[in-house]
């Protein structure tokens, strides 16, 4: 235990120190360097908290299965490039189970799906982007669960946000310094992809929120999991798949 705490303290002191030191050392590339440090620094406290917290066996497996579903989903829809359920599953996890599980599922999906699709310097940025989208959805869970429209908007936002982060990453790595012009050019060329992300997010959210939410409710009811993150049954009603309104 003491050993683990020591490593973490080291991490928390080391990374900011490295960030500052690196920025001084790699003068031209300091944008890229700092952005890398920021992504790592964002993930660490959440991972640390996850480590520290007690998680039951079934809860851990549910998180694992959701992550796996979102990785496997990348394969299942591989015949439609760019059409990925990752964001949707991350957001749904966050809505039903909370911000931290959302972050974990999002970031772990990035890490592990790249294990199949190819790791690269983009991995920390994807972990950061998907993790943050999950975490944010968890914080906005109440309104997002109530209104379908808001959820769709969040899907669009998520698509744009993800694209923005990845373009930012590309800009940092493909030029000596950050130039707005280069960023805009990249974002412009990636526009079709951004639109596809946004559209697929909305489609997946509309198609999967009801079914997956139902199932998460079902196992929560049947086995008493994730009790600390209660959802108001009224919130979920909006997603019952086309139940006749009587």
């Amino acid at each position: 235990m003491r050993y683990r705490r020591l490593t973490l303290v080291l991490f928390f002191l080391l990374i900011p120190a490295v960030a500052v030191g690196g920025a001084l050392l790699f003068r031209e590339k300091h944008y890229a360097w700092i952005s890398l440090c920021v992504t790592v620094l964002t993930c660490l406290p959440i991972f640390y908290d996850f480590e520290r917290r007690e998680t039951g066996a079934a809860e851990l497996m549910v998180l694992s299965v959701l992550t796996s579903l979102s990785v496997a989903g990348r394969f299942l829809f591989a015949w439609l490039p760019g059409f990925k359920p990752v964001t949707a599953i991350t957001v749904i996890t966050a809505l039903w189970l909370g911000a931290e599980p959302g972050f974990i599922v999002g970031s772990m999906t990035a890490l592990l799906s790249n294990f199949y699709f190819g790791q690269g310097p983009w991995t920390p940025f994807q972990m950061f982007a998907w993790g943050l989208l999950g975490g944010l959805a968890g914080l906005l869970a109440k309104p997002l669960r109530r209104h379908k429209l808001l959820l769709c908007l969040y899907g669009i936002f998520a698509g744009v946000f993800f694209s923005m982060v990845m373009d930012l990453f590309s800009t940092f790595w493909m030029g000596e310094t950050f130039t707005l012009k280069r960023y805009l050019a990249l974002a412009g060329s990636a526009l079709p992809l951004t639109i596809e992300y946004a559209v697929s997010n909305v489609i997946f959210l509309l198609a999967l929120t009801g079914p997956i939410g139902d199932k998460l409710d079902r196992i929560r009811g049947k086995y008493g999991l994730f009790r600390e993150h209660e959802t108001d049954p009224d919130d979920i009603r909006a997603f019952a798949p086309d139940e006749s309104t009587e």
Partner: protein
Amino acid sequence: MDTFRRRHPLVPLTLLLSVLLLVMFAQTPTLTVSAFLGAVLFLCVTKTKLSVKTVLCYLVLWVLVAVTNPLFSTGGATPIVFVNGRPYTKEALLYGIHLGAMLIAVLLWFRCDRLLVPEENRFYLFGGIAPKLALLITTVLRFVPLLRRRAGEMRAAQTAVGVYDDPDWIHRTKSSMTTMSALTTWSLEHAIDAGAAMKARGYGLPGRTTYRTCRFRTMDGVCITVILPLTAVTVVALATGRLDISYYPNIITAPADTLSRCGVTAYAVLCLLPFLTSVKEAIRWSFYRSKM
């Protein structure tokens, strides 16, 4: 052939981090060339086949980065042509070529990573720092192939009872969604069973340990004491500005002196380590075999 694979995972990790971070953030062409050559030679000596598509992708990326850089950076002093009245400079083009080479080198090193660390040790270091995440990762690595197989089975099962009719893409998307939904039900139920199996085997008892399969041996320490000083020399050379290069308006490199030469050599040795050890192993093997 697999000197690094046999080492404690900390050794290849240290090497990879040193090589990657230095090449990514330093701007020095000599370092980039070392990294590039180190990766290529290692991939050659381990007979790793890259698909034509991958190689083409790399080349296109390189050209793209090189050619587009001058469009955004106009800092150079030697214009080649004018595009829309803006100079397209030699310096910016050279910088772009360097940048492209650096990206390719990084991508190649990520390929080497697969060879340096055996698959089962990929997440080994996680186990020490973050045991729960490590457990999560190992379960996901088990679930993903399982879910892919089950998705196929479910799709077939539902097709054969006539759930899916038309082969057009709307139907296909819809049916993929149905499969996804059925897969979710199955996998969450499966998660509960797996959770029960974990509890049955004592998960949740206080004081869980992590089974460390790799032992840190003297040789691992030796390797690290080789890697770290080499890294340190390069870092010092970089920090003192001996390896600086500025591209704009004219390309000016810092004058070479002992320290800068040391820095470059140290980094080159670092990059060539996987290649050199592989060659050494190969020679030793053939020598050993010839004596048999």
